[in-house]
Every structure is written in structure tokens, then in C-alpha cells.
């Protein structure tokens, strides 16, 4: 007995200094590991955050499609991409019901709350109760597994990140596959960020994490190159949090329809000369035929100065003000046309 305990003590004595000197991975680091020890530290950090974040990563079934999502509060708020929970083709009445699949394979119901289809952001709320046999921490108190929000505005190019999600839709016996990469494009303006964590159909709506397991973005789209994987930055969700939560339809699919195409575009790349909507002056590029804007008398080339009686500076200001509006709402729009100022009364309609 005595000799065995002595052996144990000896082991601990030798083991301790090794742990004290162990190389740690700095999660804000923007360069590749330089040594095997650093690579091992990166591996340990990734494995730890993957175990933490996988239970909150879900698959989402909506109508005929499948995407991904992530739970962000203990009462079951879920973030995803708007196109995951929107009807294709932009027609007909949209369902607000979705089925979520948890990491353990069990399925629960959720209600779609708000959507911003221009930003490609959406929020859902789990409507089922936490199952009695659930194993995650807090389950016995009726809490859902969830992740914390990070600060996407502080992201640095080259920072190491992990993508989870369900490529190809959820597969039997497959946990959300882990993709490791670095930030390729970061932005403070709120347009899409990009990483070289590879994504494909089914990943949409899934989470991008920093190596602490904090949520940085939601997967949205891809380009041809393996470094072109685009995510909606999380601070865009935070900006519209209350509106998403109360169920507003924001952006292109807003309930109140005006029928204007404004300058600025966020779906752009380096080659585009267009400014993002948050910077572009609200110049009317086109007026849709048969739209409320046309009947009111607005014309392409008009620069909007005031909208709903408020001064506006960018196209995004108007996107924001249209969100949550209803068909039948009457708006006052002041524009500059050439050297003249005009004021129009526009009655919003239903999107056709």
C-alpha cells in the first residue's frame, strides 16, 4: 500500500511542472502556429470549445429545406440565416414553423420570429419544453444549451475560428462537422465577413465561433474559392435584436412594400464599385412598375432627403425604417430632383 502511494506522489511531482510550462494558444492570435507544441495547444483549445458549443448547434428543417442554427439563450432563442426559414421564390404566405434537431438527434419544435432577408438574419424561439431526460447542464431547471455572443467588430484578419453546422443536411450518427480556419475578411461596417472554414449547402444558419466558443457570425453564402465562405456578423443581430425577437420582417421582404431600388449593395466583393448600403446615399435607382412608389410619383434619380418625416443619410436608414411597417401605412417622402425639392405621400402596399 505504502509503496503504491509513493509512486503516485512521484508521478504528480513530475507531472506538475510540465503543465505549468505548457504552451497555451492565444485565441486572438492571427498567425499560424510555429511549432508542434503550439499546434498541440491549438488542437487542445479547439477540442475544448467544440465540446462546449456542439450541444447548442442545431439542424433546422423548414418546409422542404434543411439548414443549421445555434441556440443563444437558456430560454431557447435560436439564430439562423433568413433564407433557411423563408419560402423559396419569395411568393405565398410563409410558414413560421420549423423543426430543430439537437446534437443528440432528438427533435423539437420552434417558431420563426423576425427575419431580415437583406442581411440574411433570422431568429426563432423553441416552443417545446426541455425534455425530462435531457443531459446538458441546466436541463433539470428547464434551460437549453446555449452559446455566448462574441464581438464580431473586434475580429482581426487571420484570427483562428471554427465553423459548425450540418453540411448536406443532418446525417444519422454525425455530429455537426468541425471546420477550422482563419478570418479572411473582416469589416466594421456590418457587411458580411469571410473565413476559410469551408461551408456548403445545409451549413446555412450555422455558427462561426472564436476559439473561446463565443459566437461571431452565422453562415450565409459561399463563393467559388475555398476561402470564400461568408458569414453574417453577430453584431448585426445585436443591432436588430429586439425587432427580430418581436417578429419583425425587416429588409426586402418587409410587410409594407414601397417598390424602390436604392443605391448601395452589401452582396458585393472587392471589384464592386458600389458602396455598402450603410454608406450609400439613398438615391432611387429604379421604381418598380405598379408599385406604391410609382403611384405616388417617385422617380429614378430622386435623392431621398426625408423619410417618414425624418432626415435620412443612407439607404440603410430607409431599410431600417421600412422594417416593421405594415401595408396601408402612409409615409411622407421628401426628395431632391435636379434642383427642386418634392414631397410625396406614399401608401405602402402588400408585396406582390
Amino acid at each position: 500500500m505504502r509503496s503504491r502511494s509513493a509512486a503516485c506522489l512521484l508521478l504528480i511531482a513530475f507531472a506538475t511542472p510540465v503543465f505549468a510550462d505548457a504552451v497555451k494558444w492565444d485565441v486572438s492570435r492571427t498567425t499560424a502556429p510555429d511549432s508542434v507544441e503550439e499546434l498541440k495547444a491549438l488542437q487542445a483549445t479547439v477540442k475544448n470549445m467544440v465540446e462546449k458549443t456542439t450541444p447548442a448547434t442545431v439542424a433546422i428543417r423548414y418546409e422542404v429545406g434543411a439548414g443549421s442554427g445555434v441556440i443563444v439563450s437558456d430560454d431557447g432563442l435560436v439564430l439562423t440565416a433568413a433564407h433557411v426559414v423563408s419560402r423559396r421564390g419569395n411568393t405565398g404566405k410563409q410558414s413560421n414553423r420549423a423543426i430543430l434537431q439537437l446534437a443528440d438527434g432528438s427533435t423539437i419544435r420552434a417558431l420563426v420570429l423576425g427575419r431580415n432577408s437583406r442581411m440574411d438574419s433570422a431568429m426563432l424561439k423553441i416552443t417545446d419544453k426541455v425534455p425530462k431526460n435531457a443531459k446538458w447542464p441546466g436541463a433539470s431547471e428547464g434551460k437549453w444549451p446555449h452559446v455566448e455572443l462574441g464581438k464580431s467588430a473586434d475580429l482581426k484578419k487571420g484570427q483562428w475560428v471554427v465553423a459548425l453546422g450540418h453540411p448536406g443536411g443532418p446525417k444519422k450518427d454525425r455530429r455537426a462537422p468541425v471546420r477550422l480556419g482563419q478570418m479572411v475578411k473582416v469589416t466594421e461596417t456590418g457587411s458580411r465577413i469571410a473565413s476559410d472554414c469551408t461551408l456548403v449547402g445545409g451549413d446555412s444558419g450555422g455558427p462561426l465561433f472564436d476559439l473561446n466558443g463565443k459566437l461571431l457570425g452565422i453562415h450565409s453564402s459561399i463563393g467559388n474559392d475555398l476561402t470564400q465562405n461568408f458569414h453574417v456578423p453577430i453584431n448585426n443581430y445585436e443591432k436588430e435584436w429586439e425587432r427580430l425577437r418581436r417578429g419583425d420582417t425587416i429588409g426586402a421582404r418587409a410587410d409594407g412594400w414601397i417598390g424602390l431600388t436604392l443605391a448601395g449593395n452589401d452582396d458585393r466583393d472587392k471589384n464592386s464599385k458600389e458602396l455598402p448600403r450603410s454608406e450609400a446615399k439613398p438615391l432611387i435607382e429604379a421604381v418598380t412598375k405598379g408599385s406604391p412608389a410609382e403611384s405616388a410619383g417617385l422617380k429614378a434619380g430622386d435623392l431621398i432627403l426625408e423619410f417618414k418625416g425624418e432626415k435620412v443619410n443612407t439607404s440603410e436608414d430607409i431599410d431600417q425604417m421600412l422594417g416593421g411597417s405594415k401595408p396601408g401605412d402612409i409615409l411622407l417622402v421628401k426628395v431632391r430632383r435636379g434642383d427642386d425639392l418634392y414631397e410625396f405621400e406614399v401608401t405602402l402596399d402588400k408585396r406582390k
Partner: protein
Amino acid sequence: MTRILLIAIVACGFAPAAQAQGDVNGKMSLTKLFNDAAAIATGSTVRVRCDGRDAALGTVVDSKGYILTKGSELHGNITVRLRDGSAYDAEYVGYHEGSDLGLLKIDAFDLAPVNFVAAKVAEAGNMVAAPGIESEPVAAGIISAGNRKLYGEEGVIRNGNKGYLGIIVDRSREKDGVFVGEYTKEQSSSPAKKAKILMGDQIVTLQEKSIKKFEDLAEVLNKHKPGDKVKVLVRRREKDSDTVEELSFEVKLGSGAQFNRSEFQNRMGSQLSGRRSGFPSVITTDVVIKPSDCGGPLVDLDGRVVGIMIARAGRVESWVLPKEEIQPILADLKANKYPVKKQ
């Protein structure tokens, strides 16, 4: 090139940059950090060449010259090059279709076989690399998901790079033969439509093979790749008359990516293995590897060999066959249970 929403495909109407987006290439620089961990496995990796071209990597599984590789990449005259630069003619001993493992034999007697570890060692988050025959591995990445069986579409063996006619077979007339159904919007670029094969035409022969049912069609197309020209004989009934004529067409086959959304997305950014489905079970990695670099071992940071890299399976994944699948198949292959027909 268009940016693609990850569920619905939407052409956003702009041309994304062709140039690299930045100088971020951290993942590329990980391979050299595996030089030590992969050293032993590298000594057990061979380059497999077919008719003088790199076709695959191979994994030494027996000191007496047995090598496992990706069978579907093999053709013609097979040679094997070792780490030390020596080259051998290889005998193609056996092929197991379910796993896509091909067994080669070379006249060498002191090779170092790999020691596979159990599949459960390959945990999600482990860093891994694929050794080649140089000291630096050919690719590195992470285990994305542990070993799992494949079901549904993923579990079916097919030629992922086969040629397509771009038709939908009219199911209502299945009993009478293979009739061309209506061309849908997705088939606007259909090769058959371009060749002026019409809806209602019956396909009688394809490459002189008689076509009676859908499976006959699939069998012929499986042997062809996009760009191949095939001869199609169709029977056409003239409108408002009983005249039936037989017409011959030459169709340049298209690729699955033209007609299938997920195929299209999966092919964005990298080249995929032709055979990339129907394996019994696989470990999923995010390693980006060339199809011609499949067939070799995969190692982790402790130098453990977690399996054989069997396919570049999609934009986000490359797949590894685990020990549990390899060992019984290897025993059967050595026992000559799946001999390769001499051509």
C-alpha cells in the same frame, strides 16, 4: 462565378474576385509541423502511378510488398515509387468495390507496414495530416466528425463524375421503355435537349447497347465522363400520324453539377474524387486533398495512423476508412477473394 446562398441558389448578379482574398494561408503552413509526427507513416506511404501519371498514394500494409490504395483511380500500367526513390512494377491483386480498396503487390520484402489505430482514436478536433513520399505531408486539417456509417445517397456506390444526358425519364411509361419526359427549368442546359432529342422520344440504344429500363441507361452513363460524346438512337412518333421513325443523335455529355444543386455547390473550389460515396463507414475530415493524393494513410499529431484517405468527398470534407473496415477487407483481398480480371 456567383456567390451562392447555402440553401437556395441565388445568382446575385456580380462577378466575385478571382484573385486570392488575402495573405491568410495559415492552414497551408500546418503540413510542415507534421514532419516529425508523420515520419514513420511517410516511410509506409508510396506513390502510385498509372501509365506514367500520378493516380493515387498507397499505404504499405505488409512487409512483403502489399499496398492498399484507392482502386477506382487505377488503370493501365501500374507502377509504385517508394520514399527512397526506388520504383517497382505493381501487380493489381484484388479490388473490393464496397470500400474502393485496391490491393497491389510489388517485389519488395522489407517494407514497413503501417499500424492502424482504432477508429475511436479519431476524435473531432484532432489535427491530422496526409503523408506523401516527401518529408512534408501533402495536406493537413482537422477531424470534423468521428467514424459513422453512411446511409441514403451517401451510402450508394456510384461514379460521382459520370456523364449526364440531362433528361428525366417519363415514369408513367416506365413499363414500355425509357421515354424522355418534360425538360424542366433546371435542364435548360440539357445536352440531350441541345442535341434536339425531344420530349416523348423513346431511347432505344445508347452506345449501341439496348436500353429497356432506366438502369440500362445508368449502366452505360456510369462508364462515361462529362464531355464524352455518345451515340443515342431514339424512336419518335410523329404528331397526328402513326409514322414512327428512328433517329440517331450524337450527344456531348454534361456533368451532374449542371442539374443538381448540391453537386454544384460541392464542386465549388476543389476537384472531387470520382468515387466518393458508398463506403461502409468513414471518418470525416476537413483536409483539402487532391483526388490523386487519396489512398495513403492519415496521421494525427502523435503519429497514430487513423485510417486510409479514401476520397475527396465534397467542398467541406475528405473521408477516411477506419481500421475496423480495412482489416477484414485486407484479409479477404490477400486471400484472393476479390481478384481483378486480367484485361
